[in-house]
């Protein structure tokens, strides 16, 4: 493991920022939509609640208690044991997940843009099953499902087609019940779901400092069921947050800690992951950016601070680009983002395969991201200074002017290096004679190969039919 991550902050700065965040929550608080049950729970726990206005302020001792209770390790479950995830990752590196909620799709054969379909989603899951670095996946927004129950349809497709952990982003308060029902059906009951949470849930603040009824409901139900909650704050610097990143970090952290507090008040020990998803604002257009240097450095600052100050697992974009195409800009931006986030100690790197500020996905980009994540995890593995690694013996034995190629030590380690799938290392002449394909053409061939094979993670037919019945129930109730 590495000795330390990259950080902008020294201990005194961490302490000062921590103090600001807790003071902010104590003096100024957050505003909750009218959600009587959550407001009562918070009041009973000791928060200062003004039910008329929905303002909730958190005394510091109360917050410190909640932070103490919040687990610093947790498990994201899966249908198959080898896909269950211990957070933080035991080897000291990170997990990665694919993009969420995108409605645009870059077709892997034609490169044309179109809307995501349910069939695309099934293929997306099938592809991800074969990408070792993509540890879990959320659903995309299918254009061919009824709008009111699109999330329910989408989760059912993922449950039927993948045995990895699934991350759930509800689109309405009414669909939360059905999403949980789907997961409970596959898990085999609520107790089984608690023990092996196949899904974790997204709850978001409405920046700045507000919470919608739907997200309060998600926190309430998830905490009670023991489902891990990804507490997301998505501030846009200069728009919904201050223009300067330290101010953004205060705001995002305060919103996340408010969600941690809510979860602990509902169910002490409820697992919560901190997700400071930081955007900058392009002041020329008002557009949110995820891969500008400001957004990347702001996200890094938030992660470094939250880990050091509160010890919570962290989750943010670890891939993605503001470019609309999977081109050189996309590759440059996401490489910078991945490396910087990994070096900052991020526990979950999200956004694999996404483009155009997370509104579009590309299966081919996803495959390249998979490879970049593998390389980034290698970067984060660090070095042991063992006798073997120090290579003292062979250093001393090898005379000036000789070489190491035939040494026993080199023989023992000659296969250690990371072997890429699609990144090539040949010279131009070899490329012209033998390869003749650029990266995208090579990736496309690998994609065809994967998609031509059977999806071995498909849910048995009887369970799939049970899910269909739940989806139909959701359609009847939500689409009326």
């Amino acid at each position, binding site marked *: 493991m590495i000795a330390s991550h990259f950080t902008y902050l020294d201990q005194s700065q961490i302490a000062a920022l921590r103090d600001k965040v807790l003071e902010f929550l104590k003096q100024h608080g957050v505003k909750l939509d009218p959600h009587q049950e959550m407001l009562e729970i918070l009041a009973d726990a000791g928060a200062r609640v003004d039910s008329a206005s929905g303002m909730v302020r958190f005394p510091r001792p109360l917050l410190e208690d909640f932070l103490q209770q919040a687990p610093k390790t947790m498990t994201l479950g899966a249908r198959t044991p080898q896909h269950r995830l211990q957070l933080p990752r035991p080897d000291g590196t990170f997990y990665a997940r694919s993009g969420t*909620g995108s*409605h645009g799709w870059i077709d892997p054969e034609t490169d044309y843009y179109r809307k995501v379909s349910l069939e695309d989603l099934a293929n997306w899951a099938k592809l991800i099953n074969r990408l070792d670095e993509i540890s879990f996946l959320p659903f995309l*927004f299918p254009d061919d499902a009824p*709008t009111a129950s*699109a999330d329910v349809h989408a989760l059912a497709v993922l449950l039927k087609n993948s045995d990895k952990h699934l991350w759930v982003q509800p*689109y*309405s308060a009414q669909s939360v019940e059905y999403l949980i029902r789907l997961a409970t059906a596959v898990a085999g009951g609520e107790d089984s779901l608690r023990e092996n949470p196949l899904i974790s849930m997204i709850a978001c603040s*409405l920046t700045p400092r507000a919470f*919608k009824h739907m997200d309060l409901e998600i926190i309430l139900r998830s905490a009670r069921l023991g489902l891990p909650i990804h507490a997301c704050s998505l501030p846009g610097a*200069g*728009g*919904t947050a201050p223009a300067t990143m330290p101010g953004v970090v205060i705001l995002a952290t305060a919103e996340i800690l408010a969600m941690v507090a809510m979860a602990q008040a509902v169910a002490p020990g409820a697992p919560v992951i901190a997700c400071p998803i930081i955007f900058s*604002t392009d*002041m*020329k*257009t*008002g*557009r*949110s950016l995820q891969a500008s240097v400001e957004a990347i450095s702001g996200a890094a600052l938030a992660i470094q601070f939250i880990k050091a100050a509160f010890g919570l697992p962290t989750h943010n974009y670890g891939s993605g680009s503001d470019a609309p195409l999977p081109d050189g800009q996309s590759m440059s931006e996401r490489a910078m983002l991945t490396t910087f986030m990994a070096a900052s100690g991020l526990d979950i790197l999200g956004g694999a395969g996404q483009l155009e500020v997370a*509104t579009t996905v590309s299966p081919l980009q996803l495959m390249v991201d998979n490879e970049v994540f593998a390389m980034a995890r290698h970067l984060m593995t660090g070095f042991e200074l063992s006798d073997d690694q120090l290579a003292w013996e062979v250093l001393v034995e090898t005379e000036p002017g000789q070489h190491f190629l035939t040494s026993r030590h080199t023989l023992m380690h000659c296969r250690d290096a990371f072997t890429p799938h699609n990144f090539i290392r040949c010279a131009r002449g070899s490329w012209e004679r033998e390869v003749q394909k650029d990266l995208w053409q090579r990736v496309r061939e690998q994609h065809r190969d994967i998609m031509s094979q059977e999806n071995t993670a498909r849910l048995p037919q009887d369970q799939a039919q049970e899910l269909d019945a739940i989806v139909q129930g959701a359609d009847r109730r939500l689409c009326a």
Partner: protein
Amino acid sequence: MAIKDIFQAVLTFDEARVPDLVRAELEAGTEVEAVLNQGLIGAMDEVGRKFTEGDLFVPEMLLAAQTMKAGLELLRPLLADSDTKPKGTVVIGTVKGDLHDIGKNLVSMMLEGAGFKVVDLGVDVDADKFIEAARTNQAELVALSALLTTTMPAMGDIVAMLKEHGAGTKSMVGGAPVTQDFAEQIGADGYAQDAPGAVELARSLIRA
């Protein structure tokens, strides 16, 4: 003092000075309409042009609109008494289920700056409310904003209702996930990519 001083004060976001300049110009006998069109609206057209070219940024455009509004407030009672009419009436809001309003507010301010009467319904607005507001205010145009892909379908519903009940009221749509293709798909009369674009579109739709 001259109208060009008012124009320049808006361009340099001199909110404190604009009311005095407007007052002075009116006292000197300049027609209200001239102060409005050449001083204030003219300046906002220049702001829109500079923004489109990338010379002015969003916060600067907002500040210019605020500055213009400081001058407009002085003219309002006089405009009510005169024959000068707004360029048109626009009902604007963010659709049901969507709470985002930064872009909508920017468009609203720019439309006001361009001389339109703007009825801003806020966020999370029911479809019926758009129709009722258009009817009550005899609006020529309804402007719909959405930031979430999940709320965009509401735009289609509103456009359809306008065609059925709207007595000729036109529609335009905008917001980060909204596209020209989407606007055409739902039968909206127009799509604007940014606030100055929305002003130009409003002008062309209401003139037509």
